[in-house]
């Protein structure tokens, strides 16, 4: 897709829905996908030959508005003078080309949204927008920028003060749990997979479930696999990484052969009657 602003740049005086270019291009792409799907279905209705969409470009008369610093477009209404022309060009690309030119989400070592560290320390809303403008949307991308660039350069180009970048970087390095899920191990035992960021710094972290230490089977920066004890059902878990703590709440399914009373207090005999 390519685009340019043609003659005139005005805000116009009319009314109508306004969209960011990104929103509009996504909507238009979805419409083109629908057209392509419809053409493909036609080919399956018995027609030996049909047509597929190859290229499409469209010139639209729009007015540009920037209410909160974000450029938005509004389609020109009848008899409105001074509209700009936006030219959008689309061509078909293969899945391989799309994947090659996209960021792989699974390869992002810290896929948390940038807002998660900006809300609680360091960067404000304006700074987050400035970073998004240069394509930094996740904490992982922010860390890579910080590793490969002098903070003074970032300050010079984006206007974000060095001390705020440092604060945000410290915040981004803290261990965080983003989720957990029960999984089944090879021996059909219940395991708990804990997802997050900065969950390992050199040595294997210590994990407590309902206050009891449990075995950590696998550990990486973004994921831990731990082995709960047979009586663990639900409760709080804590992860200690390099002296810093994070945690969450877990809930595990009952093991098929588990003793249903195992989670309760051990039985004791009182006057010949079993109680607990």
């Amino acid at each position: 897709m390519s685009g340019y602003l043609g003659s005139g740049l005005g805000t116009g005086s009319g009314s109508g829905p306004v969209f960011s270019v990104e929103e509009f291009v996504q909507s238009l792409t979805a419409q083109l996908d629908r057209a392509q799907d419809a053409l493909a279905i036609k080919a399956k209705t018995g027609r030996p030959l049909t047509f597929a969409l190859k290229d499409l470009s469209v010139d639209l008369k729009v007015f540009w508005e920037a209410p909160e610093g974000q450029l938005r477009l509004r389609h020109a209404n009848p008899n409105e003078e001074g509209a700009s022309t936006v030219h959008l060009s689309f061509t078909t690309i293969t899945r391989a080309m799309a994947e090659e030119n996209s960021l792989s989400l699974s390869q992002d070592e810290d896929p948390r949204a940038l807002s998660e560290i900006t809300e609680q320390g360091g960067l404000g809303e304006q700074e987050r927008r400035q970073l998004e403008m240069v394509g930094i949307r996740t904490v992982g991308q922010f860390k890579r920028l910080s590793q490969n660039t002098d903070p003074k350069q970032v300050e010079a180009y984006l206007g974000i003060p060095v001390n705020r970048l440092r604060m945000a970087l410290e915040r981004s390095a803290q261990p965080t749990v983003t989720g957990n899920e029960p999984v089944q191990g090879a021996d059909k035992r219940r395991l708990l997979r804990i997802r997050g960021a900065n969950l390992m710094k050199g040595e294997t972290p210590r994990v407590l479930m309902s206050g009891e230490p449990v075995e950590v089977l696998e550990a990486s920066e973004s994921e831990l696999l731990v082995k709960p004890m047979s009586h663990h059902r639900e409760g709080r878990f804590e992860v200690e990484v390099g002296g810093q703590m994070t945690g969450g709440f877990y809930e595990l399914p009952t093991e098929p052969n588990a003793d249903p009373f195992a989670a309760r207090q051990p039985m004791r005999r009182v006057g010949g009657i079993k109680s607990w």
Partner: protein
Amino acid sequence: MKQRVSEFLVDLSSDLPSAVVEADTGEGLGVKTFSLSVPIESTIDEAGELAVTLPHGRLATGFDAPHGRLRVSFVRSEAE
């Protein structure tokens, strides 16, 4: 009457001749690619969907949307 651009494109492709075949010999000419550049009247609705129609021409009211342009290329594809 404006149509969503997806419906407009499918309708447009329906009117394209795919091949002209000589009945006696069974030989013919097929269309390999088809490119079209047309003026359009367009609007963007609340959901962000682009709706287009060909200009009204002689039926224009003087209160019509400003004209844009749509350029589209179709390529022949064979059924699987």
